[in-house]
């Protein structure tokens, strides 16, 4: 399987998972979107050197994923697939920031390593929360939710169509790359020239397809608004889910819960 094929397969798998029927899936998409948004804001807003204070945030994706019956192995693999970005982003921190912030035994821990750990942890938390959101809601539900929450329709529609056609586009790209490799006489790598041509060709094809899709849309009375049929209903359970978790996130953001817990256990809470 080529990497495009594998990517496509994984995306489809996530989509399949999103069509399960569990307590987590039945929650109102809006509740999940808002909760995840609060979660992301809280996680991202922590200070550069915060590591331990982030730990309480591990709970949310784990709880929601197990509630939603998402296999952890699958999520883990998805995380690994995007991990190189995070690993690169912080890779120079330990080199640039050498000021010692803690002493463990005889070794001093530099600020760079702490901030690197913080970046990686935040990456893990945010990406897994996003994956769990998609895995329990589906992109369809998310689009519907953000539209109902007041995001301009154009964006919601764009997102919806983008998601629908990512499969078609990837399929086309895959066929082109297969056609190239069949005639490449075993040469690896395509070279910049060929790569550019394939990309250009793909763009033209996409353009032509977009035009045909638009024609199909206007044939069925499209007037600029995609009307989504689903009726959303906020129940007490959804509100409780949203407020409960959000309150927890804000609390965990405002107070260093692991520290407080530690103090409580060791009895030094003043």
């Amino acid at each position, binding site marked *: 399987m080529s990497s495009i094929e594998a990517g496509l397969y994984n995306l489809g798998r996530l989509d399949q998972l999103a069509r399960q029927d569990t307590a987590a899936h039945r929650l109102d998409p809006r509740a999940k979107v808002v909760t995840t948004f609060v979660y992301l804001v809280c996680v991202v807003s922590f200070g550069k050197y915060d590591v331990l204070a982030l730990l309480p945030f591990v709970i949310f994706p784990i709880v929601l994923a197990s509630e939603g019956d998402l296999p952890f192995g699958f999520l883990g693999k998805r995380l690994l697939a995007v991990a190189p970005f995070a690993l690169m982003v912080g890779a120079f921190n330990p080199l640039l920031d050498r000021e010692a912030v803690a002493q463990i035994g005889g070794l001093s821990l530099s600020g760079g390593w702490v901030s690197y750990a913080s970046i990686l942890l935040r990456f893990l938390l945010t990406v897994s929360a996003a994956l769990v959101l998609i895995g329990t809601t589906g992109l369809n539900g998310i689009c519907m939710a953000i539209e109902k929450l007041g995001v301009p329709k154009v964006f919601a529609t764009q997102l919806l169509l983008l998601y629908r056609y990512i499969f078609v586009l990837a399929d086309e790209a895959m066929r082109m790359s297969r056609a190239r490799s069949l005639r490449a006489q075993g040469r690896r790598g395509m070279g910049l020239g060929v790569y550019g041509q394939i990309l250009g060709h793909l763009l033209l094809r996409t353009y032509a397809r977009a035009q045909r899709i638009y024609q199909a849309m206007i*044939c069925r009375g499209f007037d600029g608004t995609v009307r989504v049929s689903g009726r959303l209903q906020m129940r007490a359970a959804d509100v409780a889910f949203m407020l409960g978790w959000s309150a927890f996130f804000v609390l965990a953001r405002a107070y260093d819960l692991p520290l407080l817990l530690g103090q409580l256990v060791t009895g030094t809470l003043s």
Partner: protein
Amino acid sequence: MSHHTISVVDLGFTYPDGTRALDGVSFEVGHGEAIAVVGANGAGKSTLLMHLNGLLSPGEGEVRIGGTPVTKSTLKDIRHTVGMVFQDPDDQLFMPSVFEDVAFGPMNLGLPPDDVVTRVDEALRRVGAAHLKERPPYRLSGGEKRAVAIATVLAMEPSMLVMDEPSSGLDPRARRRLIELLASFEHTRIVATHDLDLAATLCERTIVMSAGRVTADGPTREVFSDDELLAESGLERPLGMQTCPVCGKV
């Protein structure tokens, strides 16, 4: 009812790059008729179809649907009357689930939600795809996609159906089912196709196009028996009308 008719008068169309795609095309289609439009690649079939519901506006001449000329101001009604099934179902199925895709048209018509659901169910039942309702379009097989694409158009309840290559890319059984389905419709139908056997089974009348012109227009059996005409238009007799390679009989 006499208004499910199509009349094309002296239609001409040139693409912006200078390709002369249609040149003086004229024909009439009566109520409830099933017509095949055949011709080699590039003969102008698709261009012609796109004129029938106003996706392209005529360069010269006129298209009338049920007596109403296709113009900017009539487009909305015309598109409601003339349902178009595209060649590639992937172009037609753009929503995230089959249900939403079929519901797209009726919702744009402004129907109340309950009616939309009824129409969707009815259209999907009609094409035998009721079980696919919740599936995303990219997970369907070619035949299923085609059936759903037809359902998306049926849900609009058009009085005429225009289809571009409906049998392309289908396996024999899916193709057989499609032919049965199309035969069961009472709409006025125009089918552009390379599948001459489909044309012979489904349509009493056939229009042959070649280089943007109508080269023949008549009963399907007659048209397909004229070998000279077929050869000139880049076509061959449908297999069902060829002599048997073993015994030599028709």
